């Protein structure tokens, strides 16, 4: 966190100054480790064993926050008799189809759901899961998770062998400190110190937070890492409470915003699923499968209809399904890696690359460039001439002779972009806080904001299209923002107001609870509704923290409804009293008959703790006064996920796709459901191969920004880390003849790159499974050109294209490699070296 989020890290330092204990768990000793109370070295790719052992420690010692667990989690719920755990099937959960490598999650359901399906009720709960898993579209459920029975069978004594609590206990029993030592390389002493601190720092009086950066997501089991942390936090009562939670530090200033109003292929604004071409023909069919009917997702029709009205305005009517038919449709996996492979296969002809540099920043760089070289046209919008725009004349493949510029037919359009101080708008940061920023200076020359680009592109396309029926969705779009300045910059505030939404009177709405399913309201993103409440740009509020409460509600605006902590109903006990004075946050005021406290309650304001829903209730009315997790169909925090995940209802340790070690936990080596692409462009290192004996892990440095387009070009940053380097331990340096300050060549089946060597005791060899294991660290900021004042080989050329099945994120944090002294060969000889490694 100190490495990649130094500004946010000031609050960790502040917490530390107030007595918080900080543990840092990382494959290498970083600037964060230097500040932590305890540094715990770990083998990259083994985190589920560590987290699982912490869960086991909590369960075995009965350290769980029992009152919280009973009230707010699904610990007491009985799971279907058909469910089989990895304990029963040696590393598989029930429902796995080896042909398609996908799970049918039907058997993971709560007990009783089967009967309901038989009677024809709520088919989604059973069928939906399978449909989603088929195309590995677990994310289809959006942020609400899958549907689940709102009132399942339970055993409040937690003793029934099929209740979630007992299922958990059996599942995690093999996650012991000994396993942590053997799989993660963490000593029993380190583990015990961590386990004791986590338990001591949780309960009524105290909370513990887990903080991860996106490195946790870049694994074939990345989603399950975070699931494992959620289970631990739910068991210890650390969710929905101040100082608790799992804090995802996202990679960019506005990555949170780019999923809220997504640049992802599989969701619409506000985490509504993207319709599927065959399964969601009509709006009704779509809504039937999109999340549950109970909990706040039960209002999904209002959210979706308001979105359609926002986009197509008066053209959207009840009679034409509110133009639902205009939406693009999914036919399968359209993720970034599938798209690139589609380029190589000639299916994808055109490509917009906006503020990204995939030729350097995405896994398997060569594959990315082969895709780019096979396009008809490519648009690159960036502040500098990044490698993605110049690969055709100076890429590594030109140097090796694999490609010749005269053979590449891709027409490349480079369009200069405005920087963040040259345009107005909001950033949404990791706490879901929208902060408005003003334009400080005009962008130079032809540089334009992304808003300008897309708005004027849309205008020009609309001018050129004729009367074809196929173009009607474009003609009907509401596309009329006020413009200002010489360049015709559209008003970002007008866009924010459109996102906020308006009521029948045309006035800005103040809450998503005002959204209607009948087409009388418009809203561009339901979770952002309220950011323009009272016709005021709430994101632009900048009241200093010292002039308001510790929650600082008048600084910016957080979605939803300016709540700073989600699910904060859980900060009070079932009766609505704070768990402790120290941790008081939201509570029930019986006299006034409403929830009150420091933050905006994440609960219906007047729903008393004693409320019990009548039979047949839907949406939020179906949740009781103790159902704190209001977005879930059953209102519970899920220790066990009865649906919604592509690779199992519980986290289980699988080795990375490329690992030097066997999986000693189960008979399954890798995640059975991981997305594998057997392509000659990007072959994999064989498992446990003696040719690739070292663990390779990539990362960022404070001094640079992602693929380097915004830092390699700036002398003041570039001089601080001027050359591509790798970090190795003194032991590995001795083993491979590497010299500090000298050169090394790092080789995988994809590429061989060179880097300067930094030998450091901060890189610690791990001793596990009777051997010494070395890890090689490589930052990924360099590229061969990019208009930079410094250049270097690209680390991502080394990494494989193998993905997490839930979210399609590549496993770039744990793969294997070889490392040898000296610079790499050039030209044809480089290809020969890689070929030699592939053969053996």
């Amino acid at each position: 966190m100190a490495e990649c989020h130094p500004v946010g890290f000031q609050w960790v330092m502040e917490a530390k100054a107030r007595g918080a204990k900080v543990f840092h768990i990382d494959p290498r000793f970083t600037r964060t480790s230097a500040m932590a109370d305890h540094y715990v070295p770990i083998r990259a790719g083994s985190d589920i064993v560590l987290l699982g052992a912490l869960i086991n420690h909590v369960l075995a010692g009965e350290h769980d926050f029992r009152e919280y667990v009973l009230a707010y989690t699904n610990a007491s719920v009985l799971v279907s008799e058909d469910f089989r755990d990895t304990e029963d099937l040696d590393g598989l959960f029930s429902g796995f189809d080896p042909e398609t490598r996908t799970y049918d999650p039907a058997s993971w359901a709560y007990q009783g759901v089967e009967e309901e399906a038989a009677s024809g009720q709520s088919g989604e709960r059973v069928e939906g899961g399978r449909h989603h898993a088929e195309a590995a579209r677990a994310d289809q459920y959006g942020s609400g998770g899958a549907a689940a029975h709102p009132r399942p069978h339970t055993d409040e004594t937690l003793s029934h062998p099929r209740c979630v609590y007992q299922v958990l206990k059996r599942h995690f029993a093999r996650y012991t400190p000994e396993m942590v030592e053997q799989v993660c390389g963490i000593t029993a002493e380190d583990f015990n110190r961590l386990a004791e601190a986590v338990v001591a720092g949780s309960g009524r009086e105290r909370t513990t937070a887990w903080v991860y950066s996106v490195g946790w997501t870049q694994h074939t089991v990345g989603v399950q890492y975070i699931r494992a942390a959620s289970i631990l936090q739910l068991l210890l009562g650390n969710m929905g409470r101040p100082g608790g939670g799992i804090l995802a530090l996202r990679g960019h200033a506005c990555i949170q915003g780019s999923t809220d109003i997504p640049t992802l292929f599989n969701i619409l604004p506000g985490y509504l699923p993207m319709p599927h071409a065959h399964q969601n023909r009509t709006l009704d069919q779509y809504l039937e499968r999109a999340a549950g009917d109970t909990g706040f997702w039960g209002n999904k029709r209002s959210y979706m209809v308001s979105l359609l009205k926002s986009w197509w305005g008066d053209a959207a009517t009840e009679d034409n399904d509110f133009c639902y038919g205009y939406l693009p449709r999914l036919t399968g996996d359209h993720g970034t890696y599938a798209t690139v492979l589609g380029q190589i296969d000639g299916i994808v002809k055109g490509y917009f690359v906006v503020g990204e540099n995939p030729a350097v920043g995405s896994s398997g760089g060569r594959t990315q460039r082969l895709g780019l070289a096979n396009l008809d046209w490519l648009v690159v919008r960036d502040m500098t001439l990044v490698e993605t725009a110049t690969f055709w004349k100076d890429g590594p493949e030109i140097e090796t002779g694999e490609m010749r510029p005269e053979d590449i037919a891709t027409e490349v359009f480079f369009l200069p972009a405005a920087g963040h101080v040259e345009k107005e708008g909001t950033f949404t940061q990791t706490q879901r806080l929208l902060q408005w920023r003003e334009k400080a200076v005009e962008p130079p020359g032809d540089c334009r904001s992304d808003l300008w680009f897309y708005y004027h592109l849309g205008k020009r396309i609309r001018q050129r299209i004729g009367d074809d029926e196929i173009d009607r969705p474009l003609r009907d779009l509401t596309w009329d923002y006020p413009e200002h300045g010489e360049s015709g910059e559209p008003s970002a505030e007008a866009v924010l107001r459109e996102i906020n939404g308006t009521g029948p009177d045309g006035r800005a709405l103040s809450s998503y609870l005002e959204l209607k399913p009948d087409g009388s309201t418009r809203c561009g993103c339901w979770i952002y509704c309220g950011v323009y409440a009272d016709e005021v740009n709430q994101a632009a509020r900048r009241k200093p923290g010292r002039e308001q409460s510790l929650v600082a509600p008048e600084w910016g605006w957080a979605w939803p409804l300016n709540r700073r902590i989600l699910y904060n109903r859980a900060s009070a006990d079932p009766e609505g009293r704070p768990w402790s004075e120290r941790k008081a946050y939201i509570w029930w005021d019986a006299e006034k008959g409403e929830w009150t406290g420091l933050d905006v309650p994440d609960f219906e304001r007047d729903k008393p703790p004693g409320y019990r829903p009548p039979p047949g209730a839907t949406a939020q009315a179906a949740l009781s006064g103790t159902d704190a997790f209001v977005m879930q169909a059953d209102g519970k925090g899920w220790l066990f996920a009865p649906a919604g995940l592509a690779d199992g209802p519980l986290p289980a340790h699988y080795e990375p796709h490329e690992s030097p070690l066997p999986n000693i936990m189960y008979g399954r080596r890798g995640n059975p459901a991981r997305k594998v692409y057997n392509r000659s462009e990007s072959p994999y290192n064989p498992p446990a191969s003696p040719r690739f004996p070292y663990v390779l892990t990539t990362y960022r440095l404070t001094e640079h920004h992602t693929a380097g387009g915004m830092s390699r070009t700036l002398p003041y940053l570039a001089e601080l880390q001027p050359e591509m380097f790798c970090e190795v331990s003194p032991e590995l340096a001795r083993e491979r003849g590497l010299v500090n300050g000298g050169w090394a060549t790092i080789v995988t089946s994809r590429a061989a790159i060179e880097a300067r060597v930094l030998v450091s005791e901060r890189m610690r060899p791990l001793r596990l499974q009777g051997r010494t294991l070395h890890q090689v660290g490589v930052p990924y900021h360099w590229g061969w050109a990019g208009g930079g004042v410094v250049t270097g080989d690209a680390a991502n050329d080394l990494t494989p294209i193998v993905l997490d099945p839930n979210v399609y994120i590549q496993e770039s944090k744990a793969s294997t490699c070889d490392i040898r002294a000296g610079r790499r060969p050039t030209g044809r000889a480089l290809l020969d070296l890689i070929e030699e490694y592939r053969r053996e």
Partner: protein
Amino acid sequence: MSERMGFFTDTSVCIGCKACEVACKEWNGVPDDGFVFRATSYDNTGSLGASTWRHVAFIETPDSWLMASDVCKHCTHAACLDVCPTGALFRTEFDTVVVQADVCNGCGYCVPACPYGVIDRREDDGRAWKCTMCYDRQLGGLEPACAKACPTDSIQFGPLDELLERADARLADLHANGRTEARLYGEDPGDGVGGDGAFFLLMAEPEVYGLPPDPVVTTRDLPSMWGWAAVAALTMAGATAWTRFGGR
């Protein structure tokens, strides 16, 4: 003169982000200092110099990774100022030591005079450059760029008296928490430079960070040297007189 302003750099909370180096260069228009991979931990800056007015040192020890942002000490007795023949170096109303670029003639006397090796001449224009404690920003009521950019308050700026009090409290805290290796550096008005306007809390011996343990203002002996020179001159005169007249 207004009260003496200073820097307190608390290295125990430095996270090595180098924001101070970048903010300093941005504000003061200091050029880049070369693109050299030094293979010395994460330090590719090397040392303070004409084009580096803040330098974050990274020191790897078996069980820690020390980081510290070094800067001109703005000494109470500043030798650079003493030896400057043009008056380019002067003491400001904030009791800081600043070079006026438009007066400096590049003689370079100040360079060997500095007991910390801070001030240096730029190769291309020959003039001497160093930290001004953002004199221009201070005139505008702003804190120096490095302190402003520091995310963890490792670099604190303010009236020197206040900073010294804060530093004592911080040191006591660290000692109470068992961090007995913590110590202040440059805070003592009785030291060889009369105390620094920019002082530090260090987590190891000063030498570990490349700082001199007992800096002495290089012009300390000038008054007595003048005295000795006078005696020598008189002696010489006497001897000459004796040889000329006494020998007859």
